[in-house]
């Protein structure tokens, strides 16, 4: 065979469905959405009215602020919890390790509504756990953990976030090379130096990737919130949903809110990436 330069025409042919589908149903809609947020339909005049609304109207500003806080809180809970479980998993005997990994990959496909249902039964006003704790401690009926409050929503979403982070971190801790750490110690590195120059740089890429998934996912999440409290909690994602499909139907405003949401995610992901680069030794 005389192949000097590989020719890829079959491969490019095979990419047509993929590129075609994503162009029509993802790329075009996204570009169209960005345009619709600034260009009036029909007239064609450019206006930033819908962005001005987000800056000036208190309930939009509140939504942006709430979403930032909520996504950060959930990512931190998920990040810390998942890192903890991910640290334990590789240390377990093989049987338990695969059991835990399978169990912790279950919530990924679980409907947000099922999770909402489960936590209403567990932690609602008459929730099983609430009743058990009340009986055990002899608490009055009006003292209970409120699943419909902000902390309650964080606890519910942790059921997604912790397992998701666990899967990432279990792989990361599983790949952590023990011999590298020992080599550093043998060369006379102090414990702090081992952490700073060996352990943290190895863990950082996986951790940052995990946190990015957590934050991005939480910025967009609204199914479980909607099932638990309806519109009572003002989040950016919930606002977008209401502008698309409910009484406050306003498509250009939804487009502008969406662009803001995407920008926030892109900004935070960039920051996390920079942070990871800064952690690299010599970087």
């Amino acid at each position: 065979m005389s192949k000097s330069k590989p020719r890829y025409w079959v491969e490019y042919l095979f990419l047509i469905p993929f590129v075609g589908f994503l162009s029509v149903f993802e790329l075009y809609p996204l570009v169209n959405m960005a345009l619709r947020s600034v260009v009036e339909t029909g007239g064609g005049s450019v206006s930033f009215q819908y962005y001005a609304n987000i800056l000036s109207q208190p309930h939009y500003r509140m939504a942006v602020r709430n979403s930032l806080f909520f996504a950060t809180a959930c990512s931190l809970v998920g990040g810390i919890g998942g890192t903890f479980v991910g640290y334990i998993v590789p240390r377990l005997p093989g049987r338990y390790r695969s059991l835990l990994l399978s169990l912790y990959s279950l919530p990924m496909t679980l409907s947000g509504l099922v999770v909402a249902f489960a936590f209403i039964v567990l932690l609602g006003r008459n929730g099983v756990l609430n009743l058990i704790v009340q009986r055990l401690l002899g608490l009055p009926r009006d003292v209970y953990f409120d699943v419909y409050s902000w902390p309650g929503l964080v606890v519910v979403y942790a059921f997604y976030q912790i397992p998701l982070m666990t899967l990432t971190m279990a792989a990361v801790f599983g790949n952590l090379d023990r011999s590298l750490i020992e080599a550093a110690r043998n060369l006379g590195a102090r414990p702090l130096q081992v952490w700073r120059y060996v352990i943290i740089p190895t863990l950082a890429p996986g951790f940052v990737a995990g946190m990015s998934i957590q934050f991005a996912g939480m910025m967009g999440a609204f199914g479980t919130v909607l099932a638990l409290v309806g519109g009572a909690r003002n989040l950016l994602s919930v606002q977008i949903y209401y502008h698309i499909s409910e009484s406050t139907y306003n498509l250009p405003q939804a487009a502008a809110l969406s662009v803001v949401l995407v920008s926030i995610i892109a900004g935070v992901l960039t920051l996390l990436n920079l942070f990871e680069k800064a952690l690299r030794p010599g970087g």
Partner: protein
Amino acid sequence: MSRWLYRLLLMFLILYIIVPLLMPVIFSFSIFWQDILPQGFTLRWYEAILTRPKNYSALMVSLIVATGAVLLNFIICVPAAYALNRLETPIGKRLRALSSVLPLVFPPVIVGTALVLAFSRPPLALTGSIFMVIVAHALIGLPFMFRNTLVSFRTIDERTLSEAAASLGATLWQRMRYVIVPNVLPGVLAGALLVFAISIGEFEVTSMVAGFTAQTLPLQLFQQIRNDMRIASAISAFLVYVSVLSFLGMNYLGRKMQGLSQQQ
């Protein structure tokens, strides 16, 4: 002492996932659950899903949509993963990187909004049709299907394997039949199961693009959580079964894949 602590911790970690999953299941088999313990045993709420026309048609719509999303993903992802595994050009690399970042930056709520904005006006008034729901679910499932398929092409090193088979005189058809398909199938099927399970439970984007005609099971569940927790429990339990079953399937396929890569 620390051994017991470890066991206790392990126990807690297992219960953390299992207890919430069991709630809808227990609820769906009991007549009445107001106190700590549920009371009675019944299959009435499952019967309700199958006999009430509204719920039954939602079940059918969900199955059609999930199957459609899986098939669509199959047609799109398998050739693309084959191609991108081989393409060592800059375009290939960029597409591979893009396919992992895109779904992160554009979560489902954005995909839903963009779809509604693009396809709600004539001549492209597609929202509210079952076709749009299938497309939306295919989009949400695509990263999972694509990643699984690409990984299985990677692990078996399809390129080297095919070249070896070709040098031994295997025709294209023989290479497909005996080398590529049996080796890649477990990974592709695992991706398909994942897409199916995600589609069956998807609520967020569905509620944006479905309108009134394409009512899926989760949309029914959303109404029933407010109206009737007992019907809701049966639908929730059904969704839990689908998730658990598809994960058992994926575990089985995962072990098969491990076997394949160890044979080499």
